[in-house]
């Protein structure tokens, strides 16, 4: 099984870190993983994206060209990646700031109010953890426990003195999961 994903948005939305967390979660399961950022001029213009592959096979090309799942955190990302999603794939759109409706009928679209969910948790900083929850729920690429292990591994030292923030990350992750589930049913 090979999960090929692209996550895209503004610099500052935490997309790169979110991708690394998912890759680390895959590594916690001793699977093959790769993560590669965009670092080109578009990044200097404020946009950021990364490719993540989690696989039980050896990973060939690490730059994902036909993602089974893409996440667009802003309008620019939606325009750039919508056409790339593999037919039958999944496309998660941050409906809070993307006014345009999804165009593709051959992919499963989820328009989620991610910024509002972050506001509901009273922290703009957990936007990426909410997005991670949605991606986790849609992709089923890793186990929940592995995500928590990855969070502990990557933030453990920094958040050792702030258990409240570690708890907030988990809450945000669960909020993203719930939002995706709700959208899938609706």
């Amino acid at each position, binding site marked *: 099984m090979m999960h090929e994903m692209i996550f895209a948005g503004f610099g500052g939305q935490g997309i790169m870190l979110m991708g690394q967390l998912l*890759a680390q979660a895959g*590594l916690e399961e001793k699977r093959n993983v790769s993560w*590669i950022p965009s*670092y*080109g001029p578009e990044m200097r213009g404020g946009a950021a994206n990364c490719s993540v592959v989690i696989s039980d096979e050896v*990973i*060939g090309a*690490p730059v994902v*060209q036909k993602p089974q799942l893409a996440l667009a955190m802003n309008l620019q990302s939606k325009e750039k990646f919508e056409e790339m999603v593999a037919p039958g794939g999944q496309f998660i759109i941050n409906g809070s700031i993307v006014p345009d409706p999804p165009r593709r009928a051959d992919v499963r679209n989820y328009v989620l109010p991610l910024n509002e969910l972050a506001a509901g948790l009273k922290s703009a900083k957990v936007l990426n953890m909410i997005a991670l929850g949605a991606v986790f729920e849609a992709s089923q690429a890793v186990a929940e426990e592995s995500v928590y292990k990855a969070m502990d591994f990557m933030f453990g030292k920094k958040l050792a003195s702030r258990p409240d923030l570690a708890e907030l990350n988990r809450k945000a992750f669960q909020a993203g999961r719930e939002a995706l589930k709700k959208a899938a049913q609706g």
Partner: protein
Amino acid sequence: MSEKILLKGNEACAMGAILAGCRHYFGYPITPQTEIPEYFAKHMPEAGGVFLQAESEIAAISMVYGAAATGRRAMTSSSSPGISLKQETISTLSAGDLPCLIVNVARGGPGLGCIQGAQSDYFQSVKGGGHGDYRLLTLAPNSVQEMMDLTILGFELADKHRNPVLILSDGVVGQMMEPVSVPEPVTSFPEKPWAAVGAKGRPKNIINTLHLNAAVCEERNRELQAKYKRIADAELRYEEIDTQDADLVLVAYGISSRIALTVKNRARAEGLKVGVLRPITLWPFPTEALRRLAERVKGFLAIEQSAGQMVEDVRLAVEGRAPVAFHGRSGGVMIQLDDVEADVRKLLGR
């Protein structure tokens, strides 16, 4: 085996250098290799070594010359335009038999080009970017693990042969993260009785590359060529995957070999007999292996993130025994898997 950790290719390279006993890094920032000096800036002081951001790329490679002449494991890194600036001293390091490591995390060219990964520095790496009859032992990693492993190997080979070693990587391998198992630090190092470190109680060691007498200069060249023959005989490294029954062999190094691997897997799933030959050393080049395959395959497809450079060495190796096609993108634009697949089908008449 230790637990694997997630690292960027550039970080793995720098970490590998410290594990290999390198305590002298001289460099200058340039995308997409800046995580290498960044890592050294943070970790070289902890290791008791020297990190120095030089005033220019030329100054950095000159500092490598000085450190290497004293027998210390020394390195520099840059990306394509910066590596061009270092060429004069790379020739001089070669002439002086000075072991060191040079890392090129290549980007699109020519000129300042772009900052995306590319493979258009092959000619410069293996055909002499500087002047004179010299050779760089050139290693081409295709994963983050190899960024670490080939860096460690590079220092060993440099010392073994008293020759500069070049790691020719690219922006994709440098920037990507993959799991890496980290080996134990190297603890035994070769003696370097030639090092210019003070001559108390023994004759002076002189490292010089100017020979005004042509006969002396020719003799020096003979010695260098004899060394290159020894390296070519001992250090060839390459990998063949599913070539035993292959009709078509994809030839690719570095990041392109990852694309070749994916295309090969897809082709095999459709019943097409496709294999991959991946040079790990670009000099020496797997000429004999290609010639052997040329006797029985229907053809080759060289894949490069360039307008076509290594493909010339494939054609030289094959000597017309089989057709050699080429697929490439230049300027840092990634090769599309579907496009390569279409070429594979066309070449196999499917």
